[in-house]
């Protein structure tokens, strides 16, 4: 995975987050704290975030993997792996 792809993933996460949580200050997000605790995402918001990321990045995120994507760091890591694996 090259730097551009990592940038693309982060940019996509921020764009989707801003759509789901329009009052989110994505630049101030702590990558290790859950979106729920920082941005007050509820379970419907989180579901929308997951489904939008799947659509935007054309990847499959298994429902049971959702907890792995609860932080920015986890999100980036998971999506990088999935995109590298080409799924």
């Amino acid at each position: 995975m090259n730097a551009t792809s990592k940038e693309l993933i982060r940019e996509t996460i921020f764009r989707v987050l801003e759509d789901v949580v329009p009052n989110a200050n994505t630049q101030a997000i702590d990558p290790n704290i859950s979106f729920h605790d920082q941005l007050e995402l509820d379970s419907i918001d989180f579901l929308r975030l997951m489904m939008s990321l799947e659509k935007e990045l054309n990847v499959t995120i298994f429902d049971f993997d959702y907890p792995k994507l609860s932080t920015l760091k986890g999100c980036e890591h998971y999506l990088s792996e999935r995109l590298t694996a080409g799924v």
Partner: protein
Amino acid sequence: MDWKTIRKTAKPGEPAPNLIDYAAARASFSWEAARAELERLPGTGLNIAYEATDRHVYAGRGEIVALIWLGKNGERQTFTYAELARLSNRFANLLERLGIGKGDRVCALAGRIPELYATALGTLKAGAVFCPLFSAFGPEPVRIRLSKSQARVLVTTKALYERKVRHQRDDLPDLAQVLLTDGDGLVEPGVSSFHALLAEESDHRSPPRTLPEDMALLHFTSGTTGAPKGAIHVHDAVVAHRLTGRLALDLRPADIYWCTADPGWVTGVSYGIVAPLVNGATMVVDEAEFDARRWYAILEQERVNVWYTAPTAIRMLMKAGAEAARWHDLSALRFAASVGEPLNPEGVLWGRDVLSQPFHDTWWQTETGAIMIANYRSQAIRPGSMGQPLPGVEAAIIRRRPDGGIDRLSPGEEGELALRAGWPSMFRGYLNDEERYRRCFADGWYLSGDLATQDTDGYFWFVGRSDDVIKTSGHMVGPFEVENVLMEHLAVAEAGMIGKPDAFAGQIVKAFVALKPGYTASDALRKELLGFARTRLGPAVAPRELEFVADLPKTRSGKIMRRLLRARELGLPPGDLSTLENDETKED
């Protein structure tokens, strides 16, 4: 599609249902007999928290686990009935020392943390009134509810206090004390540490001195117009909590029971605190948000017998797939029920096929205080139906007459669902709004605002709301509260909200906005308005979609015709337009 009735067969080794013969139970039922199942206080006294905790301790059941608390970071804590009794005694003693007494309101704004349960029960023991606030409310709904309830004490966390209350403290003159569950020592004037103060109190306390008709619980709910209403419930409601827990949820002592509802709403109090404890069950409380894998693990590891959840969660479990459930041993599950909005037949059957337990839908409202209509363990389920009324509850489909009376309708006819007034958990008023309360009744019947039909076998079927209230993730949202906030934005001339169907939440809040002259619709402005609303209202209430329109359809008297917005959104016929003032709602 015509969904077939589900007939159930008893599994070997399972106890018989608490309600075996529905017709016989209805015929022989009396509320006095139901009341006699409770311990009661000396004289004519009655107290919900005494029935929920102390009664078990005095009967030698104090060492049974009352609460299994699962923290979001993997913690597991248990509290016995005796421990819960002592903790709630301490909180009641603390309230007394703070000068809080009969009828004073104590609010809680917190997630599902152990302190919340001590707060609720201790408040009731002190004779004060417990008023829960959902932690996903934004600052505006929190301010309105704290203000309208005239709360004297608020129990919350540091983060929630900082985000949602502190900056508006000047607008809340009645709020004398804020107790922070994670605060150390005196934080600032009027703000103290919950645990530091509780540590100074005694475990002991003489029995409460409340009477059955004393105010106990205040639950805010939303209507089409005006600010949210505080529905008043009294200690006598515990008679219905106990009965419905036993008959509708089939609860029995020492059952492991999990109600997934948050205590910020009525279900999380009536069935997430009171009913399981009064029935001597062990209740599971999970602090974390929905997570399919975690939920199956809880059902399996805690050996949950009775599960009460909601359609939004069931639909999310369905999305995660049936295979996931099969990795888990769910054999302890004896009964599964659902509440919050009608459960679609697919959800009922999914429970049967995947969990080996069909979901039993139940119907009730904030105002009814307890389950009124249910599908029972001993009865066949008609998927998609609300079920049949509890013993002691008389339900009917009615039509309001112009003279203020009502006409009862025949089976198959669509009308408003009504309940004959007088059951113990019926709300006793809207706080400081007698007129609004009075309008809920006609000819001795409570008019629910829900449209429904009844079939020839007595099963009720939900049709829709008779007003514009939105139900999102099972929670009522009043359009007025949302519209008011959007109208505070400089760009907004008019705003109207509807519930837009959503595959998971049932409905989401969708806003239609007309801009003031000089403002132009754009994606940036759409996001700005959604963010503006979310910052003030919080995720539980804020609109998730927003569409610009040139003008909103209004009646000649100036009321927004939300049903027309809804019809246009869904591509349905507009219905009666005779009162429409304008017809210029073309999209920008």
